[in-house]
C-alpha cells in the first residue's frame, strides 16, 4: 500500500465514502451537507473547539471524564449525571465497534436491552446511527467528544460528525500501535487521512471539528519524546488534510518536573514543526491524561493518584485533563465513582490554579532534552520519508526510529526500553534504534546510573518491571524490595 502526506482530492474522498458508508446500514444516506447544517444549528457552548479556544485564552484547565454505555437513554443518563462537574463530555465507544464488528455490537445492544443494563464497555455509535446520536447532543449542554481506539474509524467519523459530535480522538499511529496487533501502519495512517479529510470538508463549510491524537500510547513508561514525535506527525498529517483545531496529548509519567517540561515542550515543538511545514492558520490546545498505568486497588490511594495528575495538569498548563476514577484498578467505574474522580480533580485544580506563578530551575534542562530528542527523531523521520512525513512515519516504525515501549502492534519495533531515574523521571535504558544524540543518551545513562547507585544494584530489567508496578503498589520509583 502506498501512502503520502498529500491532501486527498475532495472527489476522491467522496468516491471513497460510498464504500465507507456501505459497511453498515446506518451509514446509508449519511449526508455531509445535512451534517453541516445540523452542526451549524449548535450553540457555541456545544462547540468543542470554541470551548477549548476560550480555555487557552483564559489559561483555564478544563475537566473531561471517560464514559460510555450500550444504550442511548442509559448513555444520556450517564452523561447528565457527570455534566455539572465536567467542562467537556465524552462518548467512549465500545470494543466491538473499535474492531468494526458492528454485528457483535448489535448483539451487545440487544442483550443489553434484554438485561436492562449495559453489557458493552462503551457506546456503539455506528449501530445506533445518526438520529439516536443526535438525542445525546440535544440532551447535553456541553461539547461532546468521540473517544475510542479504532484503527479504522472512517464510518464512525462520518456518523459522529453528521450527528453533531465535534471532537474526535485518535490518529493513524496512536490508534494503531497501542490498540491493534496486525493492522498495517500504512493502512491505519491512510484511513485516518480520510477522517482528517472529512474533518477538512466540514471545515471548508465553516464547521470546525476538533481532532485529538491519542497521547498516552501504551500508557507505560513512554518517554515524552516518543509520544511527542507521534503527536507532531499526526498533527502534520491532520493539518495537511485541512484540520484546523488540534489538541495534542500526553500521559502523565509521574515526575512533576518532567511532566511540566513535557507539556510545555509539546506546545513549543508543535508550533515549531507546524510552522516549518507552512501551517499558520490552526488552533492548538493540549490535554494531559491522568496516570494511565496500573492503579492501586484501594480507593483512598487511587484518589491520591488522581490528585497528583490534577496538580501536574494545572502546573503544566494543560488545556484539559482526562480524569481517572477511584475504581480504575477494577475496571469500568460506576457513575458515582466517575463523578468522584471529577470532583477530586476540580477541587485540586481550583486549589492550585492561582499558584502557577513560580519558576523551577531544573525545568529548563528537562525541556532542552525533550527538544533535542524530538528534533533528532523528527529529522530521522523526515529523512526516512525523503521529506514525506507519512512515508517517513511508516519507515521510522519499521526501522525502530520511533519505538513505543510495551505496545502490542506487530509493526512496532519494540527494542527501546525505558526505566525511571532516581527522581522518577522516565529515561531510556536500552536505546534500540532510536537515533538519540550521544550526549543526550549519556544524560539518560547517567541518570539511570544515579538510581542504580542508590539502589545498590546494576541497571537491569528488574528495575523496569518494578517501575511498571510501582504506582499500583504506592510508589513512583520501583525500589528493590
Amino acid at each position: 500500500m502506498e501512502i503520502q502526506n498529500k491532501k486527498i482530492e475532495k472527489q476522491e474522498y467522496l468516491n471513497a465514502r460510498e464504500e465507507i458508508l456501505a459497511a453498515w446500514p446506518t451509514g446509508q444516506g449519511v449526508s455531509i451537507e445535512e451534517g453541516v447544517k445540523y452542526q451549524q444549528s449548535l450553540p457555541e457552548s456545544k462547540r468543542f473547539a470554541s470551548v477549548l479556544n476560550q480555555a487557552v485564552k483564559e489559561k483555564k484547565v478544563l475537566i473531561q471524564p471517560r464514559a460510555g454505555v450500550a444504550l442511548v437513554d442509559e448513555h444520556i443518563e450517564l452523561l447528565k449525571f457527570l455534566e455539572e462537574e465536567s467542562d467537556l463530555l465524552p462518548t467512549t465507544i465500545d470494543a466491538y465497534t473499535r474492531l468494526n464488528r458492528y454485528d457483535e455490537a448489535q448483539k451487545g445492544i440487544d442483550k443489553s436491552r434484554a438485561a436492562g443494563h449495559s453489557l458493552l464497555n462503551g457506546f456503539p455509535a455506528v449501530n445506533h446511527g445518526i438520529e439516536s446520536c443526535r438525542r445525546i447532543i440535544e440532551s447535553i449542554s456541553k461539547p461532546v467528544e468521540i473517544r475510542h481506539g479504532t484503527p479504522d474509524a472512517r464510518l464512525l467519523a462520518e456518523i459522529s460528525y453528521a450527528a453533531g459530535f465535534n471532537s474526535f480522538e485518535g490518529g493513524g499511529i496512536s490508534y494503531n500501535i497501542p490498540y491493534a496487533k496486525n493492522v498495517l501502519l500504512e493502512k491505519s495512517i491512510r484511513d485516518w487521512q480520510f477522517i482528517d479529510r472529512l474533518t477538512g470538508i466540514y471545515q471548508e463549510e465553516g464547521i470546525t471539528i476538533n481532532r485529538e491524537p491519542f497521547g498516552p500510547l501504551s500508557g507505560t513508561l513512554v518517554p515524552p519524546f516518543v509520544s511527542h514525535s507521534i503527536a507532531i506527525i499526526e498533527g502534520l498529517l491532520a493539518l495537511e488534510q485541512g484540520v484546523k483545531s488540534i489538541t495534542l496529548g500526553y500521559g502523565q509519567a509521574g515526575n512533576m518536573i518532567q511532566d511540566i517540561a513535557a507539556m510545555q515542550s509539546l506546545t513549543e515543538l508543535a508550533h515549531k514543526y507546524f510552522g516549518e511545514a507552512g501551517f499558520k492558520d490552526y488552533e492548538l490546545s493540549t490535554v494531559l491524561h491522568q496516570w494511565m498505568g496500573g492503579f492501586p486497588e484501594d480507593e483512598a490511594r487511587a484518589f491520591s493518584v488522581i490528585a497528583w495528575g490534577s496538580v501536574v495538569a494545572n502546573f503544566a498548563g494543560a488545556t484539559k485533563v482526562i480524569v481517572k476514577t477511584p475504581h480504575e484498578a477494577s475496571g469500568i467505574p460506576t457513575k458515582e465513582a466517575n463523578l468522584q474522580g471529577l470532583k477530586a480533580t476540580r477541587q485540586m485544580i481550583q486549589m492550585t490554579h492561582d499558584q502557577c506563578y513560580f519558576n523551577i530551575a531544573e525545568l529548563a534542562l528537562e525541556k532542552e532534552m525533550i527538544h533535542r530528542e524530538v528534533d533528532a527523531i523528527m529529522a530521522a523521520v523526515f529523512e526516512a520519508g525523503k521529506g514525506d512525513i507519512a512515508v517517513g512515519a511508516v519507515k521510522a516504525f519499521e526501522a525502530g526510529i520511533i519505538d513505543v515501549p510495551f505496545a502490542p502492534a506487530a509493526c512496532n519495533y519494540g527494542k527501546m526500553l525505558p526505566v525511571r531515574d532516581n527522581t522518577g523521571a522516565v529515561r531510556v535504558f536500552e536505546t534500540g534504534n532510536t537515533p538519540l544524540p550521544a550526549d543526550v543518551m549519556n544524560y539518560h545513562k547517567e541518570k539511570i546510573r544515579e538510581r542504580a547507585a542508590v539502589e545498590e544494584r546494576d541497571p537491569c530489567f528488574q528495575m523496569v518491571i518494578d517501575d511498571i508496578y510501582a504506582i499500583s503498589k504506592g510508589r513512583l520509583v520501583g525500589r528493590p524490595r
Partner: protein
Amino acid sequence: MCKKTIVLGVIGSDCHAVGNKILDKFYSDAGFNVINLGVMVSQDEFIDSAIETGAEAILVSSLYGHGEIDCMGFRERCTERGLEDIVLHVGGNLVVGKMDKAHIVEKFKDMGYDRVYTPDVDLQICLEELRADLKC
C-alpha cells in the same frame, strides 16, 4: 542455561501487551528460546506455533477478565492435536471480579493447567517451576 523452546502469548481478544513484553524479556534473559505470539492469540495459534517450533511449554496470559472462557478446553485441544505432554502454564487476572486465590488455582488446575499464577507472583518462582516442569 536451559535453551528449550517455549511459546508465549496473551489469549483471546485481550490487547494487554505490557506483561507479555516483560515475560518475553524475562524468559529470554533466562536462556529460553521464546516464541512470543504477542496479544490476541487463539488456542489454535498457540498449538500451531508449538508444533511448528517443537516447543515444550506454552505460557498463556490473560489480563482482561475473560480468561476463564478463553482458557477452557485448551488442554483437551492440545491432546487432540498431538501435544499430549506439553507443559501448560497460565497466569494473570484470570477471572472477572474478585475471587479467592486458592479457588482460582484449583479451577484452572482442574482445566489441565500445570501451573496457575495470579498477578502478585514473583517471576523467579515461575521460572524455577518452569525449569522443574521441563527438567532443565
